[in-house]
């Protein structure tokens, strides 16, 4: 375990020819400081943290419990309220199915939002098939929910309200404290998917009245394959477990804990907590540099989602008249993602952008830029140059750009949709 703040943030060197990584909402590299703390727990300290009979077990248990404290500290929780899982997908499943099943005799209603991650939406669909009623709240054009609509949707049958803190595509931050206060007042549990939020924005489960919170390690420079679910003890939230067995994690999630992953997750939280304020400022500056550089050199570009209520490391931009996948091919020196249909298995453009009311044409032209701990100013300048070149090249061969220059309204044309 490292003493906090004693080790400066290391630099990660990119292999020759590898693209500049600007996809930090998809995943983050493991911080080398995190990897360092994990290593002994693979080899010499390999004990089962649930072995009570010898030193191997004791030291592993101690390490896991320290990690639990580090995770609890970044969200203002008690360590006993942190349940290790395999990641945010499992945490979201456990929160929703666990609460729905435990309280099904009393309540049968769930509220969530149309822009949630697929693992929340799909779990809600599953629960609908079991007979639960689910309300999918719309969002406003800035990507945020309307509190009045949420209030109107909550009934005495509402078991749980699930609203993500930070959206993975557009980075917007929902009014979590207000939602928490409302749910507490109305007597519904409040679950929030914080996979994109923990370590990025200040969170406090008590101040924000959060009853359940899903966390993922690999979104905050920890290892893949581990996450956590915060489950409030007072007032107590009860769950039916998804995984049964040896009764680990207070019976809510059986299975031997992966000590190295727990240790890395804990260290990642400790680093994020210590560096959050400074990192937040640094990333805001980088994002402003990116957006400013693009806006200065390219007309007809549009930011998707609220720019003020947004994590610093996200920018989602539509480049009108240039299709997103074609654009990604033109910026192969960058690792970014697109809301274009062509990049999705379903051939549908981003449901998140559509929910904001972004025209389907514009949704096809969007790119998501994810900035993070190892992004440099040089990376941003490099990205701006390549994006500008690619957009100009593609607009020069876009029939829609020509029409735009001729003053033709593309919506006035009767297109044969195929």
């Amino acid at each position, binding site marked *: 375990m490292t003493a906090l703040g004693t080790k400066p943030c290391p630099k990660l060197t990119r292999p020759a020819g590898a693209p500049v990584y600007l996809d930090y909402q998809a995943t983050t590299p493991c911080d080398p400081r995190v990897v360092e703390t994990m290593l002994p727990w693979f080899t010499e300290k390999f004990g089962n943290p649930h072995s009570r009979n010898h030193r191997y077990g004791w030291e592993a248990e101690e390490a896991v419990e320290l990690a639990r404290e580090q995770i609890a500290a970044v969200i203002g929780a008690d360590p006993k309220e942190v349940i290790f899982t395999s990641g945010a997908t499992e945490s979201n499943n456990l929160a929703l199915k666990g609460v729905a099943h435990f309280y099904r005799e009393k309540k049968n209603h769930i509220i969530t939002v149309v822009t949630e991650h697929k693992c929340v939406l799909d779990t809600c669909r599953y629960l609908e098939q079991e007979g639960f009623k689910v309300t999918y709240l719309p969002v406003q054009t800035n990507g945020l929910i309307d509190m009045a609509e949420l209030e109107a949707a909550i009934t005495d049958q509402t078991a749980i309200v699930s609203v993500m803190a930070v959206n993975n595509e557009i980075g917007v931050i929902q009014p979590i404290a207000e939602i928490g206060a409302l749910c507490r007042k109305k007597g519904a549990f409040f679950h929030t998917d914080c996979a994109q939020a923990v370590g990025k924005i200040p969170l406090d489960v008590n101040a924000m009245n959060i009853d359940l919170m899903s966390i993922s390690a690999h979104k905050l420079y920890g290892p893949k394959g581990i996450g956590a679910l915060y489950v409030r003890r007072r007032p107590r939230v009860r769950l039916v477990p998804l995984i049964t067995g040896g009764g680990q994690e207070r019976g809510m999630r059986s299975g031997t804990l992966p000590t190295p992953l727990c240790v890395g997750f804990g260290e990642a939280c400790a680093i994020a907590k210590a560096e959050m304020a400074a990192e937040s400022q640094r990333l805001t500056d980088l994002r402003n540099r990116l957006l400013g550089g693009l806006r200065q050199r390219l007309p007809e570009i549009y930011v998707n989602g609220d720019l003020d209520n947004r994590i610093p490391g996200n920018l989602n931009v539509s480049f009108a*008249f*240039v*299709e997103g*996948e*074609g654009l990604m*091919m*033109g910026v192969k020196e960058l690792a970014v993602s697109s809301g*274009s*249909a*062509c*990049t999705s298995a379903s*051939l549908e*453009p981003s449901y998140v952008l559509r929910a904001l009311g972004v*025209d*389907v*044409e514009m949704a*096809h032209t969007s790119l998501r830029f994810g900035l993070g701990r190892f992004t440099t100013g040089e990376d941003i300048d490099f990205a701006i140059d390549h994006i500008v070149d690619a957009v100009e090249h593609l607009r*020069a*061969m*876009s*029939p*829609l*750009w*020509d029409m735009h220059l001729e003053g033709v309204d*593309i919506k006035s044309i009767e*297109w*044969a*949709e*195929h």
Partner: protein
Amino acid sequence: MAYSEKVIDHYEHPRNVGALDKDDGAVGTGLVGAPACGDVMKLQIKVSAEGIIEDAKFKTFGCGSAIASSSLVTEWVKGKTLDEAAAIKNTDIAQELALPPVKIHCSVLAEDAIKAAIADYRKKSGKEEAAE
């Protein structure tokens, strides 16, 4: 998604990007696809007095496969008669570019673009065939 070398070549070095005068009687213009679907192709052909396609230009809004498909067909139609050009099948385009199944619609669109350009030319020149 990994692209074939031919798709990358056409994307990076597109052949015959540009426009012909759509008001020229010898020019046929085809505009197919829809912005809402993520691809729009504009294909133009210039037809000689002998009925041979002597020039072709395209502009495309779309993914790499859509750009490559339209670039390829501009190469293919040049020097062909209208009937020969109209016989180009989307499967030929897909095969030449090694398009994966999810990208077959790009080749379909390119075939539609040729047919639309030919139909436009025939309509303008009064050579519309009874069958069409």
